């Protein structure tokens, strides 16, 4: 028994160290990359871009399902985005509330025969509408497809621009977000095939006529901790992975893709649980198999603000779904692992996801169990265990504070001192018991997937009411 426990402790120790060192390396890369990005932006004045000729048009696809509370405000904000040529397609995915009626009243919709060619699979379309109030707006009313992916596919079939930007209908984009997300494309349109933008937590902030007016940290602890998680994931993780052209996920709430490529891979997979990760994985596969020279980029400044769950039950469901989605993507793509054909995706990005994202909750629970067992058997050095715990706590806090630092030196969206003090304090308090709860939710997700429970469980949402709408 003792050798097994010892092996397990060895494993836990090295696993923990490797995971945190990887994050530390990513933090360093991200700090450097952001500084370079900021400097580069100095030579690109965004208002020049508005006047520039030959700027590629963009189609924004906003799937909406039962969004009656916020649909008017969010679509209005999409229509007011700063970009020379934009088309907005809202896909009403079989809403059972007044989403469609709200759209019809607000934007004076009339039935049209816009070009719709079913190149990618989606549920049947009931009707196509164009706004009389704003000719940029097209609404697709369709049968419920059971997933966001299905709704996006319908939008893809009607899109006429070379680039599509997929957003959540309940999110708020900053007015210059499209211009900022297009910067990598404009620099290298031949190679850049997709760009991810940053998604930030909307809860607690103030919105006026669909535009974010004041950024505030949410009041509830559970929401504020998610702010740190999002900062860590986007400003450190994605920034660093994208630097090595190994970005595996572009947030479903805000991402830009080359339309022809998304169609070439068959659009979004309707039955996928994590459709955003799934699409990027299939794009990597498709392009690597073709031997294409391509880039999938991340830009940290075009911001999309979205509502995060504000109760434990919804948050648990969301995290369980994310974990299910991860397994749902990694398992079918297991053949990409360690195959030279898939290059760094097969050698680094996917193994990292398997090891430090998918298996993390399993390793954590196994580690906790063996430590308890070792303590019971009297083979655990309590002094060292305590020190290991303190070290782990301090090290993990460095990473979290690092993400706050990254926010501070680059984008600095929290202007209020009180918000920053609270944000930093949560870096110390998120380890207990939030992390343990998170581990349990992720384990639940894995278990649900393994026993075939792929059901999409609805999250409790307030819509834009999670922010103060004026």
């Amino acid at each position, binding site marked *: 028994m003792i050798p097994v426990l010892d092996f397990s402790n060895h494993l836990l120790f090295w696993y923990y160290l490797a995971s945190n060192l990887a994050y530390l390396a990513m933090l360093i890369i991200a700090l450097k990359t952001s500084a370079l990005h900021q400097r580069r932006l100095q030579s690109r004045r965004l208002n020049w871009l508005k006047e520039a000729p*030959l700027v590629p048009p963009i189609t924004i696809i906003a799937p909406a399902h039962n969004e009656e509370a916020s649909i008017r405000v969010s679509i209005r904000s999409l229509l007011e985005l700063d970009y020379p040529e934009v088309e907005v397609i809202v896909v009403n995915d079989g809403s059972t509330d007044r989403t469609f009626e709200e759209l019809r009243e607000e934007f004076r919709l009339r039935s049209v025969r816009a070009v719709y060619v079913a190149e990618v699979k989606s549920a049947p379309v009931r009707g196509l509408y164009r706004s009389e109030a704003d000719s940029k707006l097209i609404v697709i009313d369709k049968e419920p497809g059971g997933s966001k992916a299905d709704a996006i596919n319908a939008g893809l079939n009607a899109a006429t621009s070379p680039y599509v930007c997929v957003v959540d209908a309940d999110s708020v984009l900053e007015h210059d977000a499209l211009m900022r997300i297009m910067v990598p494309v404009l620099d290298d349109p031949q190679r850049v095939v997709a760009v991810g933008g940053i998604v930030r937590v909307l809860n607690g902030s103030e919105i006026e006529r669909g535009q974010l007016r004041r950024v505030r940290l949410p009041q509830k602890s559970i929401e504020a901790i998610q702010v740190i998680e999002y900062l860590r994931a986007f400003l450190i993780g994605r920034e660093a992975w994208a630097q090595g052209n190994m970005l595996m996920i572009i947030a479903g709430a805000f991402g830009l893709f080359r339309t022809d490529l998304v169609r070439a891979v068959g659009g979004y997979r309707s039955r996928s649980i994590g459709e955003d990760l799934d699409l990027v994985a299939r794009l990597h596969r498709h392009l690597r198999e073709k031997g294409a020279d391509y880039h999938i980029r991340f830009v940290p400044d075009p911001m999309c603000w979205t509502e995060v769950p504000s109760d434990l039950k919804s948050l648990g469901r969301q995290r369980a779904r994310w974990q299910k989605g991860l397994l749902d993507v990694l398992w079918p793509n297991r053949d990409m692992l360690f195959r030279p054909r898939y290059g760094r995706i097969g050698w680094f990005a996917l193994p990292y996801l398997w090891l430090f994202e998918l298996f993390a909750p399993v390793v954590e629970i196994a580690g906790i169990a063996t430590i308890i067992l070792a303590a019971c058997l009297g083979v655990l050095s309590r002094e*060292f265990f305590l020190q290991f715990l*303190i070290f782990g706590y301090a090290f993990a806090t460095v990473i979290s504070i690092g993400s706050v630092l990254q926010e501070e030196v680059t984008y600095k969206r929290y202007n209020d001192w009180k918000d920053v003090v609270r944000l930093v304090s949560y870096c110390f308090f998120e380890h207990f018991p939030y992390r343990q709860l998170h581990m349990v939710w992720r384990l639940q997700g894995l278990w649900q997937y393994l026993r075939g429970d792929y059901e999409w469980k609805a999250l409790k949402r307030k819509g834009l009411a999670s922010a103060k709408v004026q």
Partner: protein
Amino acid sequence: MRSIFEKLWKLGPAAVVFKAIVAAIVADALLLAFIFLRRAYRKWYFRKRDARVFELRQSWEALISGEIPYENWRKKSFDRRIVESIALDEFEAAGPEQCARLLKFLRASGLIEKRIFEARQLRGWRRMRALVALGRTRAPEGIPALAEALRDRNLEIRLAALRGLGRAASPQAAEEILAWVSERGMTVPALPLQGALIQCCAERPRLLLPLVQHAEGPLREVMGRVLGEVASPALGPDLLQFVGDEREELRAAAARAAPQADPKLAFDALGVLAEDTVWFVRLRAVISLGKLADLRGVPILLKGLMDSNRLVRLRAAEALIALNTGMAPIFKQVVETKDRYGLHAYVTALENAALKGKLEADLQASTEVTSEEKRLLQEVLLTGTLPQEDLNQVERVLGGAGPQT
């Protein structure tokens, strides 16, 4: 066998773990101190800057007219940066008169000379900053310094210089860019190069012709696209020589530029290009026909309506709708094609332009169609479809079997 904790414990906690804990805690403390000290410093700095901006703004007119001696603020870098940034921001929104006034001020105060010097002498990000500032002034004397920076090894510097030259929007800047691409080839991405050239060559598009004729590969394509954008009527015959070019980008450019040429030549050229094997060449041709808005283009547009590419069909339909005359006979010809996709595109364009009612009225009033034809056409317009059973009826009533050319 001892556990790993024991083994590490034997190494001595002071030696390994204790140091690691101290290092992590020190890192936490340093990060926190940096965040808060930086915040405090920035708060102080911006307050100071804001107060100074207000003071300078109060005396702005006296400042730019030279009433306040330039020496009063030039030697203080804090003030100089503020004055320059206010002046450059004003440039972005100023009309020609105000621009001239600001430029005079920047020259007289020596700020432009300073930036030219920096653009030539400095390296890295500081050079880039100087280039951006020079570009924002659009001063002709800044063009040589910007052109020199096009030869920098750093891509970011080259891009900053290129954008700066683009802002200058003068033939002199165009000559510098063209000389550089002839000498070095494409050392920047295509889009910024196109953008800068379009801005600079608008006044004298002929500058592009030698390079379009002699360049090769992607550079030739870029030049072709730029030429297509800036083409003027005077260039018409020169552009039409690219109708049979081997590169599709140049054929597309010829199509784009055709409306600027003599209408007779343009129709012949567009007729050829509308049947090109590459879809975007056909698309360009159809769009150009739409711009010509001439009934002579109808037969070509009707063919475009039956194109295999949906964008070409839609643009052809829009071009037909944009003619806005003789809608009833055109609609009759559309139905005669018996092409469902074409009809769909036409009705879509009609609805998008909110002209369905007008076509209905035109059909009613038209003397060019018989009453039986009217009934059939109205039914097709109402349903927007051409059911199988109706095809025979269309054949019988309208008697057509394809577009009338």
